[in-house]
Structure formats: structure tokens, C-alpha cells
């Protein structure tokens, strides 16, 4: 059995699954429940000077009857006192000494940072996470994403924290920035032990078309919120990999953003995360979802021969590069399995109207009648010589493995955009003719 335990920048955890800082990590009660369910760690809901929340705090993007594809909140940091929070962290650590408890912090002045860092260590927290990402409410007061969006400011504040820190410090990064790598580098320069990303993305999920007020509505007025949940996973993966691949960052990464099951978790690990943080999926289904996460990840690592999470972490980082290194001589085409085709013809219309017009509707006679295909109704056929291999038809096809993208041997050696530009510059070749 693969070893799921991790040592994340000095924070030890029986498995990589942590509750992210947010509503599920607000109290000792919830922490006990999370650990009983099988979570490895918890990042406490951000502690700072007490705030006051509004009523009506969350909203969601539903899609095609599927709830909470995306989720949005305008809730602030903990509305409980620092005393209560630190006392409860101690209580949790006393009961769960082998689990990771991280104090998420957000204050303003150097003195306050020193004070809160020290209090975190005093209560037994295994580490500290700096909330430089919260995109609503706190940033207007010069905290949260106001810090994370300015690498210089972030670097200064991380510096203050490091002056007082005796336990590992994780800097949580905001995605509301042009290039997250700059913020990650700033954290590294200031001596942080690790980074976590992404925090939520600025969002408005929807507008009520009767009242013309977006949700969450507070007496007819809403506010820009923070977006998370399954819909943000691709954005989070992109940012995680960018930081993992950057030679100047070189910090352990705690991956956050749309993780809801072991597959999501494995993808975040593959792209360079070592620990994983989950909030929205728990807000949807409760702490119990971790059982399948642990089981699924363990089985997956076993099936692929990985000995531990650390062994697997980053396994796919190098499978991405900048576009100019991709092989222009690689070719794939779409092939339709007529035994599986049900005749919806979405491949045809998507290619015809939405892509490159490489699928014809032809007489079905040579292809027989499959399920759903009826006499007289034409079947889609790919013109392979014109197919650009864009994948669209295979993406829209509702039947698994009906349209596959098949590699065509071109017999030509690898030839990237960089190679092309180099040979053009040397006068070794003519420009490739533009597509008609």
C-alpha cells in the first residue's frame, strides 16, 4: 500500500487531504468531525481582528440541473475572537497530535503579525498560512488580496512573519493577478516555507432576472464575491503547474481549487502539489467525501507503482511546456467507431459550424445500421485528409470511445515553432503556406 502520509515543509500529516481555510474549518467541533472522517489536516478559518459578517453570503452557478458547478461567497474571515480560535486550536491539537492543524492568519501591522504568529505557535499549531488572497471585504482594508496582488508588499509582509516564525509558514496566493508566479517568487524571496493556491476568484455568479440583483443579495445589494468549486479546477491546475515548473519558486505547494474527489486530487499532485486543500466539496457533501479520496488515491498510486504521495508529486509537471516547443509535424485525426455511433450527429454539426468543416454526412449503406442509426439517415464521416485533429468532435460525442483521436505517422521528424523560426532565419526553408 502506498504511503499517503506527507511531510509538507515540516508539517506532518497522515494523508495529503486538508480542509481548506473556510466555513468547514471554523471550529474545534468541525475539526473533530473532519479528523474522525479521515482528513489529514485542517487549515483553520482565517484568524484576525474580529469582523462582522452580513446575512446572505453564498451563491452558486448551477448548470444543466447540476448544482454548485461553481460557488461564490462574500463571507469574511472568522467572526470569532482570536482567543476563542487559538484556544480551540490547542484543544484540537491536544486530541489529534498526529494531524496537521494550520493557523490561517490575516492582520495588518508588523507588530500584529508578530503577535499572531507567536500565538499560533503557542497554541500548538503545526504551521501558519498567510491569507493574502481573500478577494472581498478584507482587501478594501489593505489586507487579503490587496497584499497578494502586489508582490513587493507581499514580500515585505512575509518578511515580517518570518522574523517571528518558529513553525513553517505557507503563503496562500490569490489568482486575481496577471501572473501568479511573480507572487510565488516574492514569497520565496522573503523566506516562506511553502505556498498554497489558489484562493477564490473575483466573481458574480448570476443576476436574478426578476429583481435584477445578483446573489447573494443583502437587502437588494450584492457584492463581488470569491469563486471556487469544480468550475475553477482548470484555472487552479494551470497556476499550480506554473509555480511548480518555475525554477525560481522551488517551494512545496498545497493545491487548492475545485478538488472534489481522488481524481482531482491526483491531478493536483501530478502537477506539483504535495498537500491538497478542499472546501467547496465539503460544503456541498460534508466531511465524509474524504473516504473515497483516501481510498481512490491509495489504489491509484498502487496501480501505478508509486510508493508514496511524495514519490508521485510533480509527475506530470514536465509534460507541459511553452507552446513554441510543441511538434508542428505531429498529426492526429478523428476516427468514428460505427458500432458505437448512436447517430446524434453532434460531431457533424460541431465540426461544420464550430470548427473546420472536415466531417461529411454520407450514405449510411457502407457503414451498416448501428444503434440509433436508421435507414435513410446519413452517417458522419471524417475527411481525414482535411481533419486538423482539433479534438472537438471527440469532445462533443456523447458516447465513450466512439470517436477516438488516432495518431497518423507523418514520417517527418519533430519540428517546433522555434525550429521553424530558426530555419527561416538561416534561410534554410520557405515560409509554410497559410491555410487556404
Amino acid at each position, binding site marked *: 500500500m502506498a504511503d499517503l502520509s506527507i511531510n509538507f515543509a515540516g508539517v506532518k500529516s497522515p494523508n495529503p487531504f486538508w480542509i481548506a481555510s473556510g466555513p468547514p474549518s471554523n471550529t474545534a467541533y468541525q475539526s473533530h468531525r473532519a479528523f474522525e472522517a479521515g482528513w489529514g489536516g485542517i487549515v483553520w478559518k482565517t484568524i484576525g481582528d474580529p469582523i462582522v459578517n452580513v446575512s446572505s453570503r453564498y451563491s452558486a452557478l448551477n448548470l444543466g440541473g447540476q448544482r454548485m458547478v461553481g460557488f461564490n461567497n462574500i463571507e469574511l474571515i472568522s467572526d470569532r475572537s482570536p482567543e476563542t480560535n487559538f484556544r480551540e486550536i490547542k484543544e484540537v491539537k491536544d486530541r489529534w497530535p498526529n494531524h496537521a492543524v494550520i493557523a490561517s492568519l490575516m492582520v495588518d501591522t508588523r507588530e500584529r503579525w508578530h503577535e499572531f504568529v507567536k500565538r499560533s505557535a503557542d497554541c500548538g499549531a503545526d504551521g501558519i498560512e498567510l491569507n493574502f488572497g481573500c478577494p472581498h471585504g478584507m482587501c478594501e482594508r489593505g489586507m487579503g488580496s490587496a497584499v497578494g496582488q502586489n508582490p513587493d508588499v507581499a514580500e515585505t509582509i512575509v518578511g515580517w512573519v518570518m522574523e517571528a516564525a518558529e513553525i513553517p509558514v505557507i503563503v496562500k496566493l490569490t489568482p486575481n493577478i496577471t501572473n501568479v508566479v511573480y507572487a510565488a517568487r516574492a514569497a520565496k524571496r522573503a523566506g516562506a516555507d511553502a505556498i498554497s493556491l489558489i484562493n477564490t476568484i473575483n466573481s458574480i455568479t448570476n443576476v436574478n432576472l426578476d429583481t435584477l440583483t445578483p446573489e447573494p443579495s443583502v437587502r437588494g445589494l450584492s457584492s463581488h464575491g470569491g469563486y471556487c468549486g469544480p468550475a475553477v479546477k482548470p484555472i487552479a491546475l494551470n497556476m499550480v503547474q506554473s509555480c511548480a515548473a518555475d525554477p525560481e519558486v522551488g517551494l512545496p505547494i498545497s493545491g487548492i481549487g475545485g478538488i472534489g474527489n481522488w481524481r482531482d486530487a491526483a491531478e493536483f499532485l501530478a502537477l506539483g502539489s504535495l498537500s491538497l486543500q478542499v472546501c467547496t466539496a465539503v460544503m456541498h457533501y460534508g466531511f465524509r467525501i474524504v473516504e473515497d479520496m483516501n481510498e481512490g488515491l491509495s489504489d491509484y498510486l498502487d496501480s501505478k507503482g508509486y510508493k508514496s504521495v511524495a514519490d508521485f508529486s510533480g509527475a506530470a509537471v514536465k509534460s507541459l511546456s511553452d507552446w513554441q516547443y510543441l511538434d508542428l509535424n505531429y498529426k492526429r485525426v478523428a476516427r468514428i467507431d460505427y458500432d458505437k455511433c448512436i*447517430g446524434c450527429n453532434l460531431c457533424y454539426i460541431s465540426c461544420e459550424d464550430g470548427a473546420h468543416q472536415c466531417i461529411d454526412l454520407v450514405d449510411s449503406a457502407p457503414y451498416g445500421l448501428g444503434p440509433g442509426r*436508421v435507414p435513410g*439517415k446519413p452517417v458522419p464521416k471524417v475527411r481525414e485528409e482535411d481533419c486538423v485533429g482539433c479534438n472537438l468532435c471527440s469532445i462533443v460525442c456523447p458516447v465513450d470511445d466512439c470517436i477516438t483521436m488516432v495518431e497518423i505517422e507523418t514520417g517527418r521528424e519533430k519540428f517546433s515553432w522555434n525550429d521553424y523560426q530558426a530555419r527561416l532565419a538561416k534561410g534554410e526553408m520557405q515560409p509554410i503556406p497559410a491555410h487556404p
Partner: protein
Amino acid sequence: MLIKPLLDAGTAARNMAEKEARYAPQEALIESNRCLFCFDAPCIMACPTGIDIPSFIKKIANGNPTGSARTILTANVLGASCARVCPTEVLCEGACVVLDLEGDPVKIGRLQRYATDYVFEHQIDVLQAPAKKNGKKVAILGAGPAGLGCAAELAQLGYDTTVFDKKKEGGGLNTYGIAYYKMPPKISLDEVKMIERLGVKFQYGVEIGKDLTMPELEKNYDAIFLALGLGGANRLGIPGEDLPEVVDALEFIEWIHTKPLHEVPVGRRVAVLGCGNTAIDAVSQSKRLGADVATIIYRRGEDDMPAYGFEYELAKNDGATFHFHTIPTEVLAENGHVKALRLAKTETRDGKVQIIPGSEWTEEFDLVLKAVGQEKQSSAFEKLFPSLKLDRKGRVEHNPETMATSVPKLFVGGDCANGGREVVNAVAEGKKAARGINALLTKQNVTGPVQPSRYGAKDGALGSGFNHPIRVPELLAAMNS
């Protein structure tokens, strides 16, 4: 008649309630999102009226039930009743590709009901007739599905349209002849009112040939659409057939639609002769109205019955019993009322049903419902339209594209043209005839098929018009019969 109503009002209403509940908005959302939004979907081609089904379903998914109903009713003005009475299993839902993907098709009929109920309930008229009429007048004989389909289409084209029917209300068999649990008459009557709001005039209690003669019609109207359906039940040709408790099954169903449910007389022991879909409607409703025994008597076997498989299942679930390979030889009476049926076993030799000698027995019944097919109106039509050509099965001969008959200005559609098919076929023929009439009166060609196809846009590839690509054998058989 000796038979009496058997149930109190509450029980009768409960037993006869629509067999499926209307979708709640969330159910409709979930179901509509199962639709793949096929391009030139097989379901469209399986629908005789060519409703753009993926579009109307997408509109439900997008929270636009009004637009959805507009898509439905533009193609099929009786979309609300067809949503309930269409054999969707062998039409749109039988062609649905999700059936192949998941083993369970998108519930097109129930979604269609959801959208059409929405506009009827909110009193939204999605169809419109032009404010100015084109000055031409069309008479429609028969207010059943074919007549209504034709009238609605003509009204939208600007014709001054009048529908004549001998009944007190419109809708034809949709109002009087559909099993109550499939569709209460209110649905059909609401459809008639909607067509009235398009400017179509209705004259009820008018018998053609008696109250209104052909010369009058020919003089006053630019075209006439004949949609008088079929005649009464076929004769059995056995002794006792004329006893008071031997009733045409359609007449029995009409009682159900014209009396309060708890006042409909029904036998304790009901025999239904025949095993088509009307027989099923009769036997199931007999059980639901309190009959102790309701038995189908059919001269052939289970595999030969004309009723759809899902109808057979429904009747069995309602507790109906079945005597296959059985034929009545006499209706026995006591004091002038039905007492029993004399029955005999049959066998089929060389395709012919024969009585097995010595197999006769007697079984008590107090109501006998005849569902052995309706007579053609051959003799009535011969009197009304001496030059009208009928085929050897008694159906009115017509051009399949325009529905024009051998009589100038006379068009035909529905059961009297097709010999008796589904409501949706009648609507499609009415619509086709309207286009034929429009072509005649505007001296233009009929353009495009009733069922649109988006194929063939490119290089004329395969052209359009492969109608009815049905892969359900029982429907193919029904269509070819």
C-alpha cells in the same frame, strides 16, 4: 339498459386520474437536460408533424416554456393532446438516441405536456393569425384532429375558416374517444378554444347532407376539407347483437366523456370484443369504473393483437383478463337484456380463423363492448359526393402531398383518408391539406415537406424527406397495414 354506475364520485375521479403526473419544473429541468440536442434528430423524423423536438426540449432546459410551446404548437396545433395520446414509445421516444445510450429515452411526451400545459395554464397564446384575412373561405367538415389541424394552419395563413361538426363540442375523438386516464376532455376543449382564438368559426350540431348540403358548401366556399372520420362499430353478425347492453366501445367511452364519472353506467362483468387500442381503452376504463370482471375476447393470439405492447401491459395492470383464440357466437338474453356470451375456441388455419367444433361454452356478462373496428363511411360518402373515388378499403383516394381528392376543391384527411390511425397522423394530414388548399387557391406549389430536414444543405447531399425512419417493427407494420 340494466347496467348502473358502480362508484362514488371520489373513487371514480381517483381511478380515472391522468396516469402520469405533470412534471414539476425541476423534474422538467432534469429530464430536458438528458436530451443530447441531436443535429437533425431522429425524433423529429419519427414525428408525423415534424415537431423540432430538440429545440423545444432545449427551451425547457433554458427556462423558456413559452418558447418551447411555440415550437411545439407551430408544428402541431394539438401538441397538448398528442403529448398525452401519442404512442411515443413507437414514435419520437422510440427513435431517441438516448434510448441507445442509456436504455431509456428522453421522456419527450411528458416534456411536451409540460410546455403545452404551461401556456394553457398561463393563458398565453403562442400562435397568431394575420389581422387581415386573405378573402378566401374554407369549410372544414369535422372538428376532429384532422379538421382542427387543417383549420389552425389555414387561419394562420389568413383564410376565413369555418368548421362544421354534428356533435355539441369540437375535438372529435380527442374530446369523446380517448381513455379518460390518458387525457380528460378539458385538454381537447382547451385546444378547440385556442383555435377559436385564431379566428376559426365553429358550427356545432350540423349534419352534412342534412343541415348543410354539398351544393351549398361548394357555392359558398373556395375549398372544402373532408375530415369526417369513420362510422360506427362494425357489425358482429351474431344473434343478440342488437340487445341494449351490446354497445359500441367508442360510445361507451363517449359516455365517460359526457357524463360525470360517477354517473357512467358500467357492467359488473364486461366483455370487450376485439384487441386493438380502443379495446384496451374500453377494458381498462371498465375496470377503473368498478367492473368486477373485464375481459378482452379476441379471436387470435397474444402475438397477433393490434394493440401496442405498452397498452396491453397497462390493461393487465388494471386487472383486465384476456380470452385469446376465442370468438363470440351469440349474445344470450334474459328478459330482453344481456345475460351471457356464447363463446367458442378458435384456431388459425392458413391465416383464417376457424371455430374449433365442440369447444363452445357460456360465460356470464352484463355489458358487451364492441371494439372490432369502425365501419368506413363508404355509403355515406357515395351519397354526399357521387364522384368521390374511394379505394378498395373504403378510404378516400387522395394525392399524398396535397391531400386533394378526385372532387375539385375537395381535400381529405384523418381517419376517412388513412383508414384509422393516430391523432398525430390526422393532425399532420390536416396540416398537409391546408398547404394543399393554399397551393390551389394561391396557384403556388406546395413547398417543402411537412417534416423539415436540415440534411442536404450541402451539395444537395442526400436531399430531404426521408420520412418515418422508424425502427420499431410494430409501428412499421401498423403503417404498412
